[in-house]
């Protein structure tokens, strides 16, 4: 099953909050391999996580 970008971003986001199942990880990785937009989304979400730590200082 091929994920749409809508589904891929949702999974990428959930991957930061819960362990994804094996199937979910595979589907997400296959999608990211061919989709620059979702790859960037995924990096942006991780960057946000780290950036928030810099806010109070």
């Amino acid at each position, binding site marked *: 099953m091929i994920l*749409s*970008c809508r*589904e891929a971003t949702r999974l990428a*986001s959930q991957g930061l*909050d*819960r362990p994804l199942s094996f199937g979910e990880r595979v589907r997400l990785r296959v999608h990211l391999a061919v989709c620059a937009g979702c790859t960037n*989304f995924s990096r942006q979400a991780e960057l*946000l996580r780290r*950036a928030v730590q810099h806010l*109070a200082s």
Partner: protein
Amino acid sequence: MDEFRARVESERAYLLRYASLQLRDRHAAEDAVQETLLAALAGEASFVGRSSLRTWLTGILKHKIVDTIRRTARDATVVPGEPDLEEFDGLFDKRGHWQEPPSDWGNPDKTFDDKQFLAALKACLEQLPTKTAEAFMMREHLGHETADICKVLAITPTHCWVLLYRARMALRACLEETWSRPWTRKK
């Protein structure tokens, strides 16, 4: 004793900045800080000086912040329904592909040194709906697991993941629009 009091008091401004990141209501943030300072003074004996005073105070403050969020969540009369994902329809086309794909934000370490990025991020956080912002900051700033966040906000795990997804989507779209990348700025 008085020296300890003065050192604790000197962290007030920092603690208030910290609390204000999570609590929008200025009074609620001030109350949380005040309770923290009182607890710290009462518990001086438990400060062993192994961690820095700031770290120790921040640890107390984190609990006060979560207590405050829990109280307001319980008092809230409106129970939000399960959010639906149709709200992102504008971002994706009919086949679920990006209308405007996210761009490359470059090297994170350089990004964190960019004052304009952090200022834009703060402004974007303020635009999030309260509950969305609370969930996001509890997760990313305080580092709570989803299960804790659900309990504090009195929502289901699915709802929690949707809130976090929604926060990330909104923040990145907002930053995409408002943060002018260093590499596009005029020297």
